């Protein structure tokens, strides 16, 4: 077990930012904390790192209790904060060298690691740049390089892709998977479900400081009673036909807002086939037909009654 959090409570006055939260992260996982803004992800991370005092709960990392003085634990953690934390007075290279140097005193080894990190995040051309001269995406990459250069066993990334261009975002996500392949355990927080879905092997969904569901992508989706969503592009159909569609087995609802017919099904097999058969039989004119599996947003919607997106 890499991290074990038991019954963590953190209050800010009347607000309970983390509410009796327990979680366990296994060796080699990419563990995702998914939740909307303000759901308590950062607070949870800060408690885990002993940056905040908490009201209740126990936290163990690498099997040892985590305290502000647990320097041996900290040595093996890489942290990428939600807010970029780099020195404007230092260049890209110097920043990475500084943060790496907090963990690796040996100059020769450090130099090698820093160069690797620069290469890893693709900042080779910018190593002499000062942070002020970097775009948002590049700055995030620098922030990541500063956190991972020392090759830690455990890497915690708190929303590392906020306000990042798609190109940088993909590079970051691929990089995280690569770090995981190289053996690091990852904790990744985000409010973007696509990202979490894409890279995390296990996900905890947070809302208002509470864990509302934990599991693999598939497990989470299996928790809800919703199957695929089928969309048909069709300019015309009769009200009668529409009513008939809703009566098909496993179909929960069907709505036609020309030119789109959106059909929601509950869990089951062959839902798409049933719909297709019906359309053929009724000779409903159509162009594209496509089906989407439920997303984590649907999971969130069903569990909390509200959308995950802001």
């Amino acid at each position, binding site marked *: 077990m890499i991290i074990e959090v038991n019954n963590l409570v953190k209050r800010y006055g009347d607000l309970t930012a983390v509410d009796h939260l327990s979680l366990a992260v296994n060796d080699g996982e990419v563990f995702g904390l998914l939740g909307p803004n303000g759901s308590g992800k950062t607070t949870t991370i800060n408690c885990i790192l002993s940056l905040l005092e908490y009201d209740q709960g126990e936290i163990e990392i690498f099997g040892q209790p985590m305290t502000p003085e647990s320097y041996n634990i900290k040595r093996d953690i890489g942290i990428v904060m939600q807010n970029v934390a780099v*020195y404007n*007075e230092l260049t890209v290279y110097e920043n990475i060298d500084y943060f790496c140097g907090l963990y690796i005193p040996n100059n020769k080894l450090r130099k090698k690691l820093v160069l690797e990190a620069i290469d890893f995040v693709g900042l080779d051309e910018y190593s002499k740049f000062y942070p002020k001269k970097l775009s948002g995406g590049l700055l995030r990459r620098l922030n990541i390089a500063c956190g991972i250069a020392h090759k830690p066993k455990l890497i915690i990334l708190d929303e590392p892709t906020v306000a990042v261009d798609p190109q940088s975002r993909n590079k970051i996500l691929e990089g995280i998977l690569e770090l995981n392949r190289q053996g690091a355990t990852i904790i990744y927080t985000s409010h973007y479900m696509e990202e979490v879905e894409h890279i995390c092997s296990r996900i905890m969904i947070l809302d208002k400081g509470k864990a509302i569901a934990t599991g693999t992508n598939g497990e989470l989706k299996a928790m809800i009673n919703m199957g695929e969503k089928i969309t048909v592009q069709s300019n015309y159909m009769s009200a009668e036909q529409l009513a008939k569609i809703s009566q098909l087995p496993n179909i929960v609802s069907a709505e036609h807002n020309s030119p789109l017919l959106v059909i929601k099904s509950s869990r089951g097999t062959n839902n798409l086939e049933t719909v297709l058969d019906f359309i053929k039989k009724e000779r409903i004119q159509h162009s594209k037909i496509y089906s989407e599996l439920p997303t984590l947003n649907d999971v969130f919607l069903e569990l909390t009654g509200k959308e995950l997106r802001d």
Partner: protein
Amino acid sequence: MQVFRLCLKILKKQIPSMLIYIIIFLAIALIMSSATANEQQQDNSFTRAKSNMALISEENTPLIDGFKQELGKVANFVELPDDHEALQDALYFRSVSYILRVPEGFTESFMQGENVQLEKTIVPNSISNTYIDLCIDQYFNTARLYVQQMENISQESLVQYLKSDLAVGASVELKTVSDQSVNHNYANYYFNYLSYSLLSVLILGMAALMLVFYDSELKRRNACSPLSSKSVNLQFILAILVFTVLSCLIMVTFCILFNFKNSLNLNTVYFIINSFVFAVCGAGISFLIGNLVKSHNAIPAISNVVTLGLCFISGVFVPLELLGNTAIKIASFTPTYWFVKANNQIAELTQFGFADVEPIFSSMLIQIGFALAFFAAALVVNKKRRFD
């Protein structure tokens, strides 16, 4: 030493803005230096000219007679009535530039080894008076040595000793006189003005450093590392120390370079000690400001207000006498005042006995007191800031 090196790098980034203050300072110092060099050349041509003085002795003793003879070598005596108004007029119309009064009982007290003073009234800034001062110091300092070393020495034999001593030294003496005519005016001015530049540099550097150091995101990020907060703080303090000492050292070095001729004496040592004491105080002020300031843009403005204000009221730019009593009273609540005061006292030093340097050390002690107060205030502010 990651944090230490980081601090130095951050400080290095501030060099351009600090350089402005240093360059202005050095430019003024150079101009001053050439100005005083001219003054000193005139000085030499004065050596042979005797100045006019009045010696009013309320007693007649062999010691004073011997003194009169020695004094006659450097001054012409002018007879004046012992009348306050007449004396004032004589000074005013420059018929004499120096009036020396030997109070009654002087000789007796002196022979007993007591610390007694001659009363002098002078035309200010008259260079020729220096020779009279020197002559007086030399005569009585030597005499004091005899009195201290030989118990119950009679006045007559004392005068004999003095006569031969001062005569033996006569040919040498002329040289020592011109060497001794070390003009501390330049050093005095330089070191007074140093407080302004040093303070500016310290505030600029330290405030910038602390803004970075106390940035909450960066602090948090550093707290995630295996470096203990104790080690971080120690390295930070070390960096401040190195910065302070280095800044002070650079400025002091320039003074000695510009004023080398006049620098090889104890006065310079005291000037330097005083500067370092003041630097500690400046570090305290900067530390406090660093704890109060919230943005990079505010630093130069705050630095200017504080340094100009402190230095103006403490007589760095304008002699304190011109500012009036209220100003002096207010000024005595500033460390710069005590720095300037100590400098002025050092410039006057010709003897370095404990009694002579004691007032200087008390001025320095007061500066250290200020330094402690500033550091304490900074810690309080710091604590408060952390709770907010």
